[in-house]
């Protein structure tokens, strides 16, 4: 008989020594807040959607629009905006669908997979935002410089390079922020999922 089987015998005996909670204590626990990572991933994801949409609204309220109308590129600008909002709505729909699919009664592997997929949707959303932001930011800068009298004397490439640098710093900061927030939330989950996955290879 190996060690684990000896333990198995003892395992059954330990029941009498186990702690016992009264119904009253269990009632109290039901009122407590969950600290589940799914809950946190949900909250952080909602905040992300709010943040990016807020940023969108904020920049469109700023006087930026006037310059665009002046420059006759409002068709381009509107197209960019429409694509952006359509994609955001798409992401939100997928996110809620995936979130609904999370069931604690699934087997452990499927449960973890679904949580990670939900998480991935938001990650894709964020990267879409960053890349889309980067492209439109550079494009708009280019068009603005080309069209505005004040910038005629400035070397356009130097200006673009500076803008590009600023953009990289901005993206770097966002990336760092994500590593911290989600690394913290999903490290354990990801590790355990990998464990089950490599098992079935």
């Amino acid at each position, binding site marked *: 008989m190996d060690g684990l089987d000896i333990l198995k015998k003892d395992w059954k005996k330990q029941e009498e020594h*186990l702690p016992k909670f009264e119904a009253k204590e269990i009632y109290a626990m039901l009122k407590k807040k969950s600290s589940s990572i799914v809950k946190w991933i949900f909250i952080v994801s909602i905040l992300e959607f709010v943040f990016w949409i807020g940023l969108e609204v904020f920049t469109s309220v700023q006087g930026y629009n006037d310059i665009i109308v002046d420059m006759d590129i409002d068709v381009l600008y509107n197209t960019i905006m429409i694509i952006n909002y359509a994609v955001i709505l798409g992401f939100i729909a997928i996110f809620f669908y995936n979130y609904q699919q999370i069931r604690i009664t699934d087997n452990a592997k499927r449960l973890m997979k679904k*949580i990670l997929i939900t998480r991935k949707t938001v990650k894709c959303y964020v990267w879409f935002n960053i890349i889309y932001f980067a492209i439109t930011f550079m494009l708009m800068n280019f068009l603005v410089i080309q069209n505005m009298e004040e910038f005629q004397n400035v070397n356009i490439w130097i200006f673009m390079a500076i803008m590009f640098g600023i953009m990289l710093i901005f993206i770097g900061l966002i990336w760092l922020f994500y590593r911290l927030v989600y690394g913290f939330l999903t490290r354990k989950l990801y590790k355990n999922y990998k464990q089950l996955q490599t098992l079935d290879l």
Partner: protein
Amino acid sequence: MNKKLEKEFVKKLETNQNIVHKICRIYATGEAAHKDLFQEITIQLWKAYPKFRGDAKFSTWMYRVALNTAITLYRKQKKKVQTQDWDQYAFKIKAEEYDDTTEQNLKLMYQAIKELNDIDKALVFLYLEDKNYTEISTTLGISEVNARVKMNRVKKKLKELLSID
């Protein structure tokens, strides 16, 4: 939520709470952590309870939700309270039943289990609970063959840990 449902749930959990305590015993160290994990499992069970149809046994359903909470949803609290006494009763073995070597081995075995990763702990837990490989494989979502292979590896690992000490 429905008062009647709540009452029914609390009663069922109260009767079956040993399952949850045993999971806490494997996954949590110290009284505070034990209670914390127990509480999170209780919340998750309660959240899932309205969907519990009664087509499975309550205890079987509990294994799933409780283990999933321990492996997947639960984030360990940072605060570490040292409460040795709490864990001691895990090794409470009546002296007349075992000789010293066996008792020592059991202690070491519990310690070795604590060193395992979350998935291995789940395997050990289900094994100790006398679950067969079909149940183990459906609970974790791996094939039965792999559950067996993995279980043998865990046993070997535990044996090694014991022989080193």
